[in-house]
């Protein structure tokens, strides 16, 4: 009664439902070379697409392909762990069908 039923579906499954044109050549978000671990952990919490991941050893992975272009990581770590943040190239990126 006190714990809600476990949520089983991961965010990746949901991202797969979105329409994207992925720019394989250029990353529109670039991480710093040695990003600060605590900032990475903050990014993992705030990114609505769950694209920032930090493992127990502190290794970071980031995949810009599922980006929702919200800009939250720019607000949290622009100039820090996020070295550069731009819009994807023309016609690239997410294309909402509902919004």
């Amino acid at each position: 009664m006190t714990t809600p039923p476990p949520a089983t579906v991961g965010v990746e499954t949901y991202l797969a439902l979105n329409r994207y044109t992925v720019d394989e050549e250029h990353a529109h978000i670039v991480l710093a070379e040695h990003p600060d671990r605590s900032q990475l952990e903050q990014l993992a919490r705030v990114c609505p697409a769950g694209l920032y991941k930090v493992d127990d050893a502190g290794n970071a992975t980031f995949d810009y392909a599922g980006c929702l272009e919200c800009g939250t990581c720019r607000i949290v770590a622009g100039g820090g762990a996020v070295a550069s943040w731009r819009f994807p190239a023309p016609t690239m990126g997410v294309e909402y069908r509902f919004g």
Partner: protein
Amino acid sequence: MADFDAIVVGSGCAGPAAAIELARAGKSVLVIERGTFAGAKNVSGGRLYTHALKALLPDVAGSAPLERRIVRERVSMLSTDSATTLDVTDEAMRDGRHESWSVLRARFDPWLAEQAEAAGAEYITGIAVEALLKDGDRVTGVRAGEDDITAEVVVLCDGVNSLLAQQAVGAARPRPDQVAVGVKQVVALPESVISDRAMCADGDGMAWLFVGDATHGSIGGGFLYTNRDTISVGIVATVSDVMESDTPIHRMLEDFTHHPSVAPILRGGQVVEHSGHLVAEGGYDAMPPLVGDGVLLAGESALMCVNAGYTVRGMDLALAAGQQAGRSAALALAAGDTSAAGLAGYRAALEDSFVLRDLRTLRRFPHFMESTPRVFAGYPDLARDVMRSLFLVDGTPMRRPAKEIGRIVRRTGYLNVAKDIVKGVRAL
């Protein structure tokens, strides 16, 4: 001679409104939108209060592609295992003056852009403005793709994640406590099922807002809007709070949609889209300057958004601010002075309109929310326990309700509750 009288950056809510007024005044105006179509990059909750749309487009507002007229309001305090809900139906919600409709931006924004084109605005889509052209302090045009395009005045309507506001008026990047992150899913269900679950007729709909466990105690809330044949469900939480939360925001949404009080309305539905977007919530005091030489800011590029906890309102503000920006720009063009001084009438007009008045009225609200965490973690449990004392019966002899409720409230402290109420009322 500049290429255009005016360039509008962005075709969300504010941009087309500005372009419509400029075109109506006979000015040449170019709108540049980075999405392949207007709306392709945009997300709201969303519920549109239609008053500003009607003021902008009195003849065609009725044919806008909106979803359902909101005739049922619900506000819930959510704890992990309960919801304490206020449910309001009121025929006044049908009154044209204050009606609101659920909306999907990838459908609404293209229509609004069409109205601007019909009024005479030119459009380029699929290309972002990368930088503003400047001559000293004066904005003289935009750089988009390979092209430099000049204008006597530029109207920045590029939304909350503006990469241009700094160059335009020196606006600092918003701080994490001045913006919230929104995450949302659209869930498809048959139209009649949605009507039944919302206890509404087809065409009528429900807005349902949540505080408390939706954000696992972070400052923010959950929302659920019924559309024609989809339901929009999501959460909005202050970025600085989520940064320190024990739950990532996407997981908060997953938990929220599986909450025992929320899951039944979504049951059997198919998630068809997962989206994310920022929302400005710093209020009046976080806004940057609204004009510079040759440039005006309208909508969320200037952080114009009312977040009163129980509701987020940015679209009607953006529509009205965009319309006013277009008018003020056209007047300045006619007077031959698009310097900051020539454009100063814009701010004055907004101060008189609901846009800056509402932002001023709720000026202290962001601070109240920050300094009253009990609204998000504490009161939902308190409400649940009071209701349990009234409604759970198991045959053990009852205690007097007044006594029992007193015991529950004492856990938080009468003084704390009284203080929070006074603070909340003052903030409003």
